């Protein structure tokens, strides 16, 4: 039984200030770089103090999860932002030509993180299905062609990651449950992404109706699926039970949409519910999703509670 995170962590306020200044041309690139590195160190330290076993760098460099990668892959063009809800927008990329590998996406982030921590590392990256689903397609005649082409690009990145020592990759695929009719395409895409990759593969899925993707999701070529449970008061655990869930389980048990910090007791109760479904060594305890939208002190407290609850359960079960 291990504790981990989904990926993002709140950016320090000073980093946001520096980003603004950088945007206005008031500081140069080297200073910005230094700020990024220091912010990663601070996020990592928070994770270490909280006691999380498997960590990532808090995604200080990522503004959001689609355009960050699209900007670094040939074939994408970003014309501007579109709305997702309320007053929230994202730069929605358009696929305008053949998708091709151009430069490293997360390898340098991994290497930097490795140089500053002894903890185990997971590398989260938005999956091919979700990136294409959240982009416009001007080039490929069929959607799946775009998805498979992007899966090849990501496969190349994963090979590079493994070569430099990464052993745990997480595909972030929140778009999968929003199109249950395309599960076959998503599954093929995962197979392309992980082809020849000798690493532990997790897949993070949040939102949407989980029942619609069962049981097919169990055939995806991943070692672990990470679901959010706290957000829907753990009702979805029933689905796993109904379908004899047998993969490792990423167990989202901290609500990232609520500023109320969970009590150790309620998280312990949740973990015990998960242990009714999978064996302790199959269980990865984590928050529902990235923590980036929470105030930093609350995100930190939530991680602390999560780790404390996990440790207490371990002790009670003599693990």
């Amino acid at each position: 039984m291990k504790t981990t995170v989904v990926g993002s962590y709140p950016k320090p306020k000073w980093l946001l200030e520096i980003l603004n200044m950088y945007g206005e041309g008031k500081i140069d690139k080297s200073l910005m770089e230094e700020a990024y590195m220091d912010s990663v160190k601070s996020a990592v330290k928070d994770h270490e103090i909280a006691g999380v076993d498997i960590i990532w760098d808090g995604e200080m460099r990522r503004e959001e999860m689609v355009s960050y990668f699209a900007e670094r892959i040939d074939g994408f063009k970003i014309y501007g932002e579109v709305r997702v809800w309320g007053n929230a927008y994202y730069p929605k990329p358009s696929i305008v030509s053949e998708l091709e590998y151009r430069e490293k996406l997360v390898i340098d982030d991994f290497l930097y993180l490795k140089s500053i921590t002894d903890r185990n590392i997971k590398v989260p990256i938005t999956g091919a299905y979700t990136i294409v689903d959240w982009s416009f397609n001007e080039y490929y005649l069929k959607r799946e062609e775009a998805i498979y082409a992007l899966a090849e690009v990501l496969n190349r990145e994963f090979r590079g990651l493994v070569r430099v020592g990464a052993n745990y990759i997480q595909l972030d695929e929140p778009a999968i449950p929003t199109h249950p009719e395309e599960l076959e395409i998503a599954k093929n895409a995962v197979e392309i992404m992980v082809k020849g990759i000798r690493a532990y593969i997790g897949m993070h899925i949040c939102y949407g109706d989980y029942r619609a993707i069962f049981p097919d999701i169990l055939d995806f070529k991943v070692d672990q699926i990470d679901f959010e449970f706290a957000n829907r008061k753990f009702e979805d655990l029933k689905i796993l039970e109904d379908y004899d869930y047998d993969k490792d389980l990423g167990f989202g048990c901290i609500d990232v949409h609520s500023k109320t910090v969970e009590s150790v007791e309620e998280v312990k109760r949740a973990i015990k519910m998960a242990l009714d479904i999978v064996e302790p060594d199959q269980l990865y305890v984590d928050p529902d999703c990235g923590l980036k939208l929470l105030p930093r002190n609350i995100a930190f407290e939530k991680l602390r509670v999560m780790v404390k609850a996990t440790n207490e359960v371990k002790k009670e079960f003599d693990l």
Partner: protein
Amino acid sequence: MNVTTTVVGSYPRPEWFRDYLRKVEGLQKELNVKVDEEIMKKAISEILDEQRRAGIELPTDGQLIWHDFLLTIASRLDGFEMNGLIRYFDNNLYYRIPITRAKIKRSAEILYDLDVAFEIYRDIKAVLSCYTITKLSKNMFYKKYDEFLWDMCRAIREEIKRLESMGVKYIQIDEPSLIYAKRDELGLLEEIFKEITRVKSETILMTYFGSAENIFPEVLDFGFDVIGLDFVEGYEENLNVVREYDIHSINIGIVDGRNTKIEKVNDLKEKFEKIVSSDNFKIVYISPNTGLEFLPRVKAYEKMELLTKLRGVII
């Protein structure tokens, strides 16, 4: 044949207005926050200018403060409570799901933002919805769906009467959910829409996100002056519809409002000619198939220009 260029309704907000809204409302609008009318006027005026500059003859107000897409209408009625986010059709867009907690009533103007636009420009189209609102919200109050729909209909009808007396000449009713309507609902829908369309203003039914074949021929008796069909996502089926039935006036949703790819004018012209060849239409509008706020603003503008170019080659 007289062809008029128009849009479906929504339009990307000007960047400065976006920043303003985020500042006063945060990421999610709180219901008690009121947008400063002068600022709203400036934004609407900018979008009206933009539409007319691109050659749109019948513009809208751009729905610039519609935080929940069509469900914004619910947020302006009594009886609904806005709840957690839920996906808007098959878009990567989310609205707060309205839940009925009490009888649905209209106690104030629904389209108060349209009034602002109407002051600036009078040849403008008002956009409302009725059936779709009931389908996309969660009913926790009414025992019978029919009662819910009828109360919704009455509220919308009151607003339409207000718009009519104000002098609004074009009233569009967006009903994307009609695409999924069951055949046994059509009798009730006929009564509902006959009530809604009983006005002097021109009424336009707008369907999108697919073909509307399953509501034909019944929809022809709903009382609308113009029927709007999506010829991007439901092209083949809607083409059959216009070939088979006698639709006297049509809104042809022909430019793709959900993809940044700019179509070739000649391809659109060919498509247009196929659509109109079978009928003798009294009124023809051409528009994107959906609202334009699915696109970045520069592309939304290009799509309108494309529509104007199309109009140039078909006349």
